[in-house]
């Protein structure tokens, strides 16, 4: 894997999640940040900080990105969400257009 092909997503507590750009672009918001022609600073450094998203939620979102790619390619498994995460996860998903 090359660094240029990945993005680092940083949570409120400073936890870092390194995922492939392909996976991150499951999120329309991140896709826009990485591909808009004006160039967000995020796109150049390959880092996006989410001061409002906590690490467990951000990790769940990254898991969802990969699950979504697997699902799109025909592997039909369930995506498990712990009940205590649902509310925060929904708010984050709304923000990320995921």
């Amino acid at each position, binding site marked *: *894997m*090359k*660094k240029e092909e*990945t993005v680092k997503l940083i949570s*409120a*507590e*400073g*936890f*870092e*999640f*390194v*995922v*492939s750009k*392909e*996976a991150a672009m*499951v999120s329309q918001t991140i896709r826009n940040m990485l591909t808009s022609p004006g160039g967000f600073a995020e796109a150049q450094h390959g880092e996006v900080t989410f001061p409002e998203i*906590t*690490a*467990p939620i951000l*990790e769940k979102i*990254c*898991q969802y990105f*990969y699950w*979504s*790619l*697997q699902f*799109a*390619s*025909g*592997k039909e498994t369930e995506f498990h969400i712990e009940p205590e995460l649902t509310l925060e996860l929904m708010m984050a998903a709304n923000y990320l257009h995921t």
Partner: protein
Amino acid sequence: MTPHLDSISGGGDGGGDEGIKSETLKAMYIRVKRNKVTYFVQCDPTETTLEIKQKLQGLIDQTSNNQRLTLVSTNEVLDDSKTLADQKVENDAIVGLSIRKDDNEFEEVCIARVEDYTPFS
């Protein structure tokens, strides 16, 4: 009015892309963790531990012989020559990464916990 245009500009939203991307798409991913960093690594069950380390090499600037991977659920150190399937490393598994220290020993597996960093306490 011009429905044929939709098919040209409308793509790129998940579903229709698999034909192009199937080459990069792997059967599973693992979560490689060290301190506060998690690397999501796409892989196949038939890949060896060494192949995973070679993928990590591009991200962390440490050669494969300076890396040690430990399956967190069983606390077993993964063997370079064995495949992930052999060692029961499954989709979404968490693997701890340790780096060789200056004294040639590997550091302990250390994965930061969120509870220690919560900004709302």
